[in-house]
């Protein structure tokens, strides 16, 4: 059987204006697996995700989703290949209500989650559905950011530091939700500084440094690599 990942990134180079920040990132995300990208601050983890969803001002190389090339595709068509993006800054629309944020994304497939299921996973959002997005706490914003893309029905969830700056209780809650999604077969690409959070979820790890992938290994080999990982990301 041919190895056929859901997402395939090959030699991705990326720029912000004049500054060249991704120097050939390659990685692959197999179906129904969770991949975590680790690395210090500023090594280009967010930029890699932005390159995948079409948010870099210039990108070269190849990003294939289900075999379809995304580089050069109009930005508004990329979601329809099955990608749901949860940005690092969460991207909640502050002037829209929680409900409007939840209804904002076009359905990209019939896998889109029902509101009942969403409110089942995130009861807080149900209580606050009439509140303006801008008035939510950090944890609520993160939940809304995840809930919102799940409504659209992505095949691949791209998450940028979903636990950043959140209290342990909320981190646990989000961990449980992502685990449940994983059991349902959702594929995930996760950037995470919280190594302990990532190791409970990920099947495979990539390590980045200075705009490149410098190492990758399966979760079962993690213990053997702990020293390298520690020295590279400082945990």
């Amino acid at each position, binding site marked *: 059987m041919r190895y056929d990942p859901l997402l395939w990134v090959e030699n991705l180079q990326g720029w912000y204006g004049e500054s060249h920040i991704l120097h050939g990132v390659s990685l692959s995300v197999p179906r129904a697996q969770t991949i975590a990208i680790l690395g210090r601050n500023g090594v280009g983890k967010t930029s890699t995700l932005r390159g995948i969803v*079409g948010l870099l001002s210039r990108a070269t190389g190849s990003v294939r989703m289900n075999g379809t090339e995304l580089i050069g595709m109009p930005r*508004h068509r*990329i979601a329809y290949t099955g990608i749901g993006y949860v940005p690092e800054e969460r*991207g909640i*629309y502050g002037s829209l209500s929680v409900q*409007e944020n939840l209804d*904002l*994304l076009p359905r990209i497939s019939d896998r889109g989650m029902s509101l009942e299921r969403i409110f089942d996973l995130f009861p807080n959002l149900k209580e606050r559905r009439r509140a303006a997005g801008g008035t939510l706490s950090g944890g609520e914003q993160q939940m809304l950011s995840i809930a919102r893309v799940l409504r*659209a029905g992505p095949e691949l969830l791209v998450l940028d530091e979903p636990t950043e700056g959140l209290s342990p209780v909320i981190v646990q809650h989000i961990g449980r939700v992502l685990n449940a999604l994983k059991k349902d077969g959702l594929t995930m690409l996760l950037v995470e500084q919280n190594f302990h959070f990532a190791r409970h979820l990920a099947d495979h790890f990539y390590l980045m440094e200075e705009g490149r992938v410098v190492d990758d290994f399966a979760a079962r080999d993690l213990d053997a690599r702990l020293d390298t990982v520690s020295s590279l990301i400082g945990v």
Partner: protein
Amino acid sequence: MTMIFGVPLVALASQLVIGLFNGAFYALLSLGLGVIFGLLRVVNFTHGAFYTVGAFAAFLLTSYAGFSFWACLVIAPLIVAALAAVLERSLLRKLYGLDALYGLLLTFGIALLIEGLLQFYFGVAGQPYQVPALLSGTSNLGFMFLPHYRAFAIAVSLLLCLLTWLIIEYTSLGAKLRAATENSRLLEVFGVNVPLLLTCTYAFGGALAGFAGVIAAPVFQVSPLMGANLIIVVFAVVIIGGLGSITGAIVSGLMLGTLEALAKVYWPPSANLVPFLIMAVVLFLRPRGLFGKGE
């Protein structure tokens, strides 16, 4: 005879109707300008020309093709919308992401071009346009005579403003517009066709201006510079209401029209200055306008 502060009620009431009538134009025009600025970040100096084109489209459709006023009320805005869409797709689009000054210069240039062409073909003299027969009368309200056409114009303009406001605040399309105003790149990543949304918004703003132009045709003369004269006041309205605020555009449009009319009654020489005096005061007290939000 009833007097109010030394002015006969009849005169005051008639001026107020004229004020509301002008205010309705201000509201329609500043609403379009505001929506366009909110989403495209373009200060659309072509707006006055869109208004003029709307009036000319009605004039030409009626004089040369025999269309009724009512048909023009629908067709002329569509013509302006099409013109606006073509301009956005072919020229304006190239300037997104650049300094706002480029958009301003381009739209100003286009306005001059349109107005120059109209002057070349029609001269500067105004062309008359008939009030539709259905609305040509007046009603005696006891304290004043209400011209039907003006009453209709005020009502239909306000209705259109209200409808626009409802769409923006309460529909999913409106939610997309508001979201695009906040962060359009992310909205694109979510699968919303933002370039199309921008074209439609510009076309819609143009259509509102074109609609105002048709409404204006029977009252003012149809002339190449009718929009250029109006647009300066409309910019004052937008600034008073607060850039990008829908409610602000509508409320301050009506308010300004009314205040202008009152000024005409009580101290005629000040009438033309009123919009700019109010703008200065508002800018001094609330730099973001009456309804503007901080960025």
